[in-house]
């Protein structure tokens, strides 16, 4: 391994907790989010949506809407590219996205967009929406995953299944995944106890507080500007250009500050519509979704139905694990059936393991990524069965997990062999944590669970420009969804040896940098961080060259130390160290501007594991669960800014608590969403939660110069199971369906 790539371990800036660079903007209201942009001559857009779960559009009459004073344009599917063709599966993702953004001849779910209006005010646009007359022929619908796979279920789209689907399955099964190793039948024969159970989870929404919002401007020459709240403006540029038939480079996209995403802002919804309206009116058009629209028409996570069978010996050794995972992903392909199956048994080193995943379509909104897509549900099912086995065999749940834990060299349940991983360290930290030893009262339960996520690298480009005064401007292409500008500046400070405050990190627009993949897969601190370190090293090479030229010695005879160019040894000569500033202030005359950059697709993301401990109390009268104490233990590889690592741990746990106890998409028999608002879709409040303790475990990732692993997603993997295990102990009955809402707990208690 090149010296360049070895893990660094002595840090001056990394691991400290400086103030975030966007802090003052965000506490004073100055930060500009998606809806905070205005343009001269701007129109307001509003979208016409289907009230039906499944219907054929017989006609759309927009004449009355168009006649309303102030209405400037109406668009329908006819206003988008006709070059995008339907094929099977996710191969036609542009077509799927277009069909979701603007329905063609059928509406596929309650909330599906079918027309849009631009008017001189938001009120007029909304009034005009009500004047659009749509004639529907209502078709049979299905919203439940098991029903959607059953014989006789209405087919959402003929020809949608991809080649992975074996014959004989319902056409709503659009993708199939199967993997494993060993022989599970042999494994089950070796077991002293086998437990088999089925589980269901409802769809949940990412629940970001900022609704989708954008401001678009597009001329008939195909040149456009788009401002929007997004996790990935480069992807939005590419997709919007395709949907509108534009050349990608002619559309410049700027990411606003983003008011939460959690995966849900990795995909376009309103942006192509605003661009189409702008093109038709030659004026800027702003669209801001209402909260109801966010719930009805943007990506919730998949709902699931899962069967798990695990065999265990009396000493706690797991002899075999088998899982079947059915994921409902709305009216389009893409439910993470495969990823769910891959994550399910990943924490454990199993001789015999087998998993199957189905991606299924139904009449619901197109599912979108939500923090470790699929993994939390898989963990809920698998870790619940492991908990039940431990209880039956009277074994300590942490000892059993330690006994079976994946380690370096383990052949993972989904195929590859693990490199350095930190699961054992997480479990050991859990075992010795005061929380695990604290006494419980009657009516209380303690649950633990492990969780796993792959993490991701992805296309990344970073540019690092030096100023004459010795300060540094970093341009990144990954929207900052959790304080990443602070951690990126910390890594640059570490490399360059200059103070954190002398660095400014900006999320650059699409015209400024090469392609950057979306901020997803917990990839930003890993991949953009890695690219920043390499870009800084590129700048350092150039700085050293200037010093070498000044001193008249070879480039190789200069090294960079603590913010200065110095001769690399006594043979190189005796020269006074040159500070970064002393080089940059003369750079115009010594060869021109100095800019470091790096472009790559890093592939060493390094998987991540966590262990959560939770105490819960169940009120047998009301069925209400109170979370009493919560501890998150997770391997971060190396925490760059520990406060924001803790924040990710706490935020993931809180979202998991909501998912486990309250949050669910509720559909009526008419296929309409019944709880499209924060009053009825209840995310955790401050008064619902205790403090959430965190332990940062650091087992360096060999794929990052400082050892960073992504931390954003793994934190939501264990909570569903950990809480289910705590609630099951507290209530004295095993809960197998989420959310564990009061009525469901009361029903389980009554059935007991």
């Amino acid at each position, binding site marked *: 391994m090149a010296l360049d790539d070895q893990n660094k371990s002595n840090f001056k800036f990394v691991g400290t*907790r400086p*103030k*975030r660079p*966007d*802090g*003052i*903007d*965000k*506490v*004073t*209201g*100055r*930060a*500009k*989010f998606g*809806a*905070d942009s*205005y343009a001269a001559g701007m129109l307001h857009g509003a979208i016409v949506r289907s009230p039906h779960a499944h219907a054929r559009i017989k006609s759309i009459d927009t004449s009355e809407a168009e006649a309303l004073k102030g209405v400037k344009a109406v668009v329908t599917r006819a206003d988008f590219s006709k070059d995008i063709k339907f094929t099977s599966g996710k191969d036609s993702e542009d077509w799927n996205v277009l069909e979701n953004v603007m329905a063609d001849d059928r509406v596929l779910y309650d909330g599906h967009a079918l027309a849009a209006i631009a008017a001189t*005010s*938001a*009120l007029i646009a909304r009034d005009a929406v009500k004047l659009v007359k749509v004639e529907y022929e209502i078709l049979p619908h299905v919203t439940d995953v098991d029903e959607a796979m059953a014989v006789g279920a209405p087919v959402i789209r003929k020809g949608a299944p991809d080649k992975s689907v074996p014959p004989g399955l319902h056409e709503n099964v659009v993708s199939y995944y199967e993997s494993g190793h060993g022989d599970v039948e042999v494994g089950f024969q070796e077991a002293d106890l086998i437990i088999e159970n089925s589980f269901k989870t409802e769809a949940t929404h*990412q*629940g*970001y*507080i*900022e*609704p989708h919002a954008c401001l678009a401007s597009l001329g008939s020459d195909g040149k456009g500007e788009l401002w929007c709240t997004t996790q990935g403006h480069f992807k939005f540029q590419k997709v919007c250009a395709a949907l509108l038939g534009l050349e990608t480079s002619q559309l410049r996209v700027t990411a606003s*500050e*983003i*008011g*939460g*995403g*959690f995966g849900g802002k990795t995909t376009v919804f309103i942006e192509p519509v605003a661009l189409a309206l702008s093109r038709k009116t030659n004026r800027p058009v702003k669209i*801001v979704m*209402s*909260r109801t629209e966010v719930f009805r028409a943007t990506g919730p996570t998949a709902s699931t139905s899962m069967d798990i069978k695990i065999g265990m010996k009396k000493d706690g050794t797991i002899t075999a694990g088998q899982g079947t995972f059915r994921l409902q992903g709305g009216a389009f392909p893409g439910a993470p059936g495969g990823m769910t199956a891959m994550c399910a048994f990943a924490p454990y080193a199993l001789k015999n393991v087998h998993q199957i995943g189905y991606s299924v379509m139904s009449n619901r909104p197109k599912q979108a990524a939500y923090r470790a897509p699929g993994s939390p549900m898989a963990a809920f099912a698998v870790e619940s069965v492991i908990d039940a086995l431990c209880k039956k065999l009277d074994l300590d749940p942490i000892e059993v997990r330690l006994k079976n834990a994946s380690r370096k060299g383990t052949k993972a349940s989904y195929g590859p062999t693990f490199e350095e991983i930190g699961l054992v360290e997480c479990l050991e930290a859990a075992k010795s944590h005061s929380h695990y030893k604290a006494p419980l009262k009657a009516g209380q339960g303690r649950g633990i669970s492990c969780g796993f996520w792959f993490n991701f690298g992805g296309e990344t480009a970073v540019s690092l420009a030096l100023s004459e005064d010795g300060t540094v401007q970093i341009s990144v292409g990954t929207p900052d*969804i*959790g*304080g990443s500008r602070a951690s990126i500046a910390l890594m640059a400070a570490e490399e360059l040896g200059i103070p954190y405050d002398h660095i400014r990190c900006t999320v650059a627009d699409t015209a400024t940098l090469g392609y950057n993949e979306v901020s997803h897969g917990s990839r930003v601190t890993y991949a953009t961080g890695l690219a920043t370190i390499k870009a800084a090293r590129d700048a350092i090479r150039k700085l050293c060259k200037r010093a070498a030229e000044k001193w008249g010695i070879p480039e190789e005879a200069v090294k960079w130390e603590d913010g200065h160019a110095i001769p690399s040894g006594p043979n190189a000569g005796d020269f006074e160290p040159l500070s970064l500033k002393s080089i940059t202030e003369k750079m115009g005359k010594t060869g021109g501007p100095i800019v470091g950059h790096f472009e790559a697709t890093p592939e060493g993301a390094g998987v991540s594991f966590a262990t959560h401990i939770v105490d819960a109390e169940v009120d047998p009268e009301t069925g209400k669960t109170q979370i009493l104490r919560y501890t998150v233990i997770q391997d971060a590889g190396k925490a760059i*800014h520990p*406060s*924001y690592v*803790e*924040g990710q741990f*706490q*935020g993931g*746990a*809180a*979202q998991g608590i909501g998912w486990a106890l309250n949050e669910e998409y509720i559909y009526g028999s008419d296929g309409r969403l019944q709880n499209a*608002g*924060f*009053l009825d879709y209840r*995310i*955790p*409040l*401050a*008064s619902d*939660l205790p*403090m*959430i303790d965190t332990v940062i475990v650091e087992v360096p990732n060999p794929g990052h110069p400082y050892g960073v692993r992504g931390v954003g997603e793994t934190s939501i993997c264990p909570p569903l199971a950990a809480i289910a295990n705590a609630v099951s102990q507290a209530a004295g009955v095993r809960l197998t369906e989420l959310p564990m809402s009061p009525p469901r707990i009361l029903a389980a208690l009554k059935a007991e």
Partner: protein
Amino acid sequence: MSNIHVNATVNGDEVGFLCDPRETLLDCLRDKLSLTGAKEGCGTGDCGACSVKLSGRLVCSCLVLGAEVEGQEIETIEGMSRDENLHPLQEKFIEYAALQCGICTPGILVATKALLEKNPDPTETEVRYWLAGNLCRCTGYDKIIRAILDTAADMREAS
């Protein structure tokens, strides 16, 4: 429908604007007065991102009509620090990393300032229940609650 002329005081400044009778105070602050610090997260009074003070009372500005504020005094996040110094709550939120995305932060700061004016020594439970109308999806509230309790202690010591 004809527009209504409204005069009010915002963060100590006299303002006037024309609004449709259906427009909310939040719409007017953002679209007429360019004060975009208050956010619309739901439009139904559930998330608190639009919290402002209206003649001394903490309200969701999405639940107040613009036409209702004639002659009233409004305080928004933009008025929380009126010179180069931040309010102690603002300082502490940055120091404690009590925000991630920051969309709920203006509402939470306005609501918390109102709490500390009423009750300079709240318990953790009191803070949690006071903020039950302000949703945060990123942080799990832990660092927010710690920042508030610590600010309250500092402010008591300073006064």
